[in-house]
């Protein structure tokens, strides 16, 4: 079909006075947007291929390039917006489901930005983290109801396995396959040196990554790719992935092009074959089935590693979370609907699930009402963008946060949302050798270290400001939060008062 | 230890610098019939063309001898060597004793027998700074220059004199320029380039006689062509200056025979530079390789051997970089022989010609595009089998990428 009803989404704007025809843009664009025209000795652009990933912009040594959203518009219509119309064009031309990468783009409320953090003034001294100890470590795992000591004060209770994080942040599940080996390596190395955890995602684990075991969460998802006893015992924590915030109720699909030799080995599937994760686990059709899987995994790992169950934040999350806690999970991970993904149907991504803030507040409250909040750890993810989001999440009741998009942005992701094409110009969401090498894990590692170290400092500052010197004293400390511009229902669900109250 | 060097050019400097690397105290004496501070012989044509100043003619800075603690006896010709007494006799009768002696006397121009060519004061060779200074006095915008010989020296003389004189005619017995190093394909663009710049060639012919009174006024070729002449440059060839050495019992063919450490057959007598016949490491044959870089390396190799110092001297082979009016030419190794395979490429007056024997690169001629030629030189000196390379020699982007990964990375990390 040659009839194209739409037009390129972006415009490539080149300052001819600044362009030095070094061709860096051409060499760096996997979408082949830029080209040196030798007849006219000028750089030319095919804008229809541009995905606005900014690789060319970032590398252009003279800042001669700008990518702008194409400002060509339809007749103004608040209902039939340009994107609504263009999506119809696309589907009418392709007959396919609209795909997208990364997180929800719709303007739903971001509750993090509607909560404000408290600080001490006069009655209670703020603490200077540069001068006083400031503790950001947390322990994830199941907690017994109480501890027993003998008469000499020695501990009698046998503790279930715990995982200690120096900062309440973990790199959440991103499979080797959806992201490149170099990205994976950077995450693993940074997690190790930060003493936090990274998550294998559902892609299994290449042997060379076993060395990062103490800081690895091995994930078991519905496709069971790369799952075997050695894998289960390779990490320090296990995670059953039930759902993902970006696509609740949907399985995964790694296209065969991304299944090269290394990915094929790690996943234990033939090279070039599509890796399709079913929507549900076909051995979990109910909560009691989950219990069986949790205990199977505990048996397989000799009760030495905590088991997490990850769900997408959906309407009924509090009850589901309660069930998970009672089914024996040690950690409940909840992923909000702004969370990222390598590929999701756009309609699902943009319309299914609920914001993590509300899910977190509701789950924490529900578990407290059932007096089981202290039994389990609660980890939340789904668009944690900065240290303040983390502080707010913990004040709402989380033990720790999962970050993925932030980590990828730290190593270069520009949120073009085209991960599913496998042509990630930043070497992150790709398996193409020439693109993969663009992400030097040494650099990526350092940037991740920097990011989390910076966040740690900020968390310490915010804690100190609140007069708190251990992060556990912030957990569930909702008095430290006030809402801004929220209605009473939202305040009630978040369990916070409005600013000024 | 007392080192004596006869000669004061590249080989001498190589020897001095080599000695001083290993021995800061020993006495070093340089004896030369030339009066000049060590200068760069190949720059003579540049000097005449006015592109290099007198100050820049020096090969090493003015304080070189002082810094190197070298005793110089410049303007003193060594007339005899007594290998038994280990002494050199100078023209003035003085003798200089040595423990180790380097003969680096270079070569002299060979002047063929031409009728009437005798003792005229406007006939020059083009080997020494003194001749350049003499020529300079006779050159003006109307001066007519005739050069006999279109070898390297002849053409460099032509290049140097063309811009500052009225006319330059070059007479060459062979049918092309640079017959010793270029084939026809390589020679044509050189000739063209020189003609563009005002040089007239008379090829495949010899000068039969000169017409003179007290100076040469005309050169008459075999076919009777007469060429008016104010300055005549004789550049048909050179001869190593071996006489004094041979008299002392040093063995020589055309040049002094030396081994890989520049030793002659006589104990404690070494020879280096244009005066020698050394081993061409690409062929294993002894030959004269009268080229500046080789002279330096040989002088230095001799020094290391004199001091019994470790030295990873790879030996030398013919290699040369020249250029005429901006057209660069690089040659190395052999140009022909048995069982040779020739690979060539090129267009628009640029050409590359590689001579391969048994999977090893043994020679090349690059005209015009000489970039990265050293990589080929490296292939030759290291005798790297071409079949291990991932690219063809004639590929446009031939480079270190052609090497296998391990070798390449070793090179990159050196």
């Amino acid at each position: 079909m040659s009839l194209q009803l739409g037009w390129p989404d972006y415009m490539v704007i080149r300052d001819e006075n600044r362009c030095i025809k070094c061709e860096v843009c051409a060499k760096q664009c996997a979408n082949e947007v830029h080209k040196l025209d030798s007849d006219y000795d000028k750089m030319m652009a095919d804008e229809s291929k541009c995905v606005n990933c900014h690789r060319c912009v970032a590398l252009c040594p003279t800042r001669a390039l700008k990518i702008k959203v194409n400002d060509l518009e339809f007749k103004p219509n608040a209902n039939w917006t340009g994107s609504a119309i263009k999506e119809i064009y696309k589907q009418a031309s392709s007959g396919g489901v609209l795909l997208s990468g990364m997180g929800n783009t719709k303007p739903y409320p971001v509750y993090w930005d509607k909560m404000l953090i408290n600080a001490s003034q006069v009655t209670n001294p703020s603490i200077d983290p540069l001068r006083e100890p400031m503790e950001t470590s947390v322990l994830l795992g199941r907690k017994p109801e109480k501890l027993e000591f003998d008469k000499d004060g020695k501990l009698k209770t046998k503790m279930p396995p715990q995982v200690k994080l120096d900062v309440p942040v973990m790199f959440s599940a991103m499979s080797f396959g959806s992201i490149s080996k170099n990205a994976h390596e950077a995450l693993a190395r940074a997690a190790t040196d930060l003493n936090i955890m990274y998550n294998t995602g559902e892609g299994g684990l290449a042997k060379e990554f076993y060395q990062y075991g103490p800081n690895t969460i091995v994930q078991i998802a519905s496709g069971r790719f790369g799952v075997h006893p050695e894998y289960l015992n390779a990490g320090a924590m296990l995670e059953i992935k039930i759902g993902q915030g970006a696509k609740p109720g949907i399985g995964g699909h790694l296209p065969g092009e991304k299944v090269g030799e290394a990915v094929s080995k790690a996943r234990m599937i033939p090279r070039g074959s599509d890796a399709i994760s079913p929507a549900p686990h076909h051995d979990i059709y109910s909560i009691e089935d989950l219990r069986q899987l949790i205990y199977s995994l505990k048996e397989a790992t000799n009760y030495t590693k905590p088991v997490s169950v990850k769900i997408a934040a959906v309407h009924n999350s509090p009850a589901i979370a309660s069930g998970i806690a009672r089914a024996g999970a040690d950690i409940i991970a909840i992923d909000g609907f702004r969370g990222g993904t390598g590929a999701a149907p756009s309609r699902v991504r943009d319309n299914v699930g609920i914001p993590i803030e509300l899910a977190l507040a509701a789950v924490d409250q529900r578990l407290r009402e059932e007096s089981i909040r202290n039994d389990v750890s609660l980890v939340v993810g789904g668009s944690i963008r900065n240290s303040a989001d983390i502080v707010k999440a913990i004040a709402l009741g989380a033990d720790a946060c999962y970050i993925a998009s932030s980590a990828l942005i730290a190593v270069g992701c520009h949120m073009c949302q085209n991960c599913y094409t496998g042509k990630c110009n930043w070497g992150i969401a790709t398996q193409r050798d020439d693109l993969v090498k663009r992400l030097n894990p040494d650099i990526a590692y350092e940037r991740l270290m920097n990011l989390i170290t910076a966040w740690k400092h900020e968390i310490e500052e915010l804690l100190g400001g609140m007069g708190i010197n251990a992060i556990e004293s912030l957990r569930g400390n909702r008095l430290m939060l006030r809402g801004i511009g929220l209605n009473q229902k939202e305040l009630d669900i978040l369990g916070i008062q409005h600013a000024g109250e | 230890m007392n080192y004596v060097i006869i000669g004061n050019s590249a080989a001498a400097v190589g020897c001095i610098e080599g000695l001083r690397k290993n021995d800061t105290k020993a006495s070093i004496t340089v004896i030369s019939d030339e009066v000049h501070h060590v200068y760069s012989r190949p720059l003579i044509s540049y000097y005449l063309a006015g592109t290099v100043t007198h100050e820049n003619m020096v090969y090493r800075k003015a304080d070189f001898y002082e810094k190197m603690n070298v005793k110089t006896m410049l303007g003193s010709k060594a007339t005899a060597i007594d290998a038994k007494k280990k002494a050199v006799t100078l023209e003035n009768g003085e003798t200089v004793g040595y423990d180790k002696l380097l003969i680096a006397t270079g070569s002299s121009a060979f002047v063929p027998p031409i009728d009437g060519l005798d003792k005229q004061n406007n006939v020059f060779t083009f080997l020494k700074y003194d001749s350049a200074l003499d020529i300079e006095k006779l050159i003006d915008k109307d001066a007519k220059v005739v050069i006999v010989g279109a070898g390297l020296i002849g053409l460099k003389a032509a290049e140097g004199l063309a811009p500052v004189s009225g006319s330059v005619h070059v007479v060459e017995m062979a049918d092309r320029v640079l017959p010793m190093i270029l084939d026809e394909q390589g020679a044509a663009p050189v000739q063209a380039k020189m003609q563009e710049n005002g040089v007239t060639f008379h090829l495949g012919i010899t000068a039969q006689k000169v017409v003179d009174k007290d100076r040469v006024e005309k050169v008459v070729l075999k076919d009777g062509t007469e060429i008016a002449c104010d300055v005549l440059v004789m550049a048909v060839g050179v001869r190593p200056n071996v006489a004094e050495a041979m008299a002392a019992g040093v063995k020589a063919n055309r040049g002094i025979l030396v081994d890989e450490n520049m030793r002659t057959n006589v104990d404690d007598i070494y020879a280096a530079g244009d005066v020698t016949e050394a081993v061409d490491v690409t062929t294993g044959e002894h030959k004269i390789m009268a080229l500046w870089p080789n002279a330096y390396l040989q002088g230095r190799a001799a020094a290391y051997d004199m001091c019994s110092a470790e030295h990873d001297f790879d030996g030398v082979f013919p290699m040369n970089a020249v250029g005429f009016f901006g057209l660069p030419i690089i040659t190395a190794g052999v140009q022909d022989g048995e069982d040779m395979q020739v690979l060539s490429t090129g267009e628009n007056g640029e050409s590359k010609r590689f001579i391969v024997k048994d999977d090893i690169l043994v020679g090349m001629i690059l005209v015009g595009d000489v970039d990265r030629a050293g990589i080929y030189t490296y292939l030759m000196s290291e005798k790297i089998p071409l079949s291990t390379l991932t690219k063809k020699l004639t590929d446009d982007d031939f480079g270190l990428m052609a090497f296998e990964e391990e070798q390449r990375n070793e090179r990159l990390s050196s």
Partner: protein
Amino acid sequence: MKKVYADEKWCLGCGLCNVYCRTCHSETNDIVKAHNFEEPRPKSRLHVETGEKVNFALQCRHCDDPKCVTACITGAMQKDPDTGLVTNDTDRCVGCWTCVLACPFGAIVRDEDAGKVAAKCDLCVKSGEPECVKHCPNNALKFEDRE
């Protein structure tokens, strides 16, 4: 001595090193002017070799026993005994290209525009790190002392 080392594993062949090398060796020290306006056009002293799987940027290795120095007919090419830096005195260089012939890395660049002289990496350390290293977007060039 500290030298620039290329790591072909991470080189993207983007050529930014060339851009910054050229700029650093320009009169104006301005990228745009150096590339678009300056006459003669400044030369980069690097060779970026690109292949299907690997790329690398190569510049003068500042060898211990530099063949370019021993080959130089004018004495323009010298290795500084203290710093180890191999530099070419462009006032004395006549552009005979013997160094080009001698350098086993092919690292010497002919600068025909700037008066026919050999151009080579001088490690431009005035700003701490050579420009190519500083601007390599993927750490494929390292300025290190590996001896």
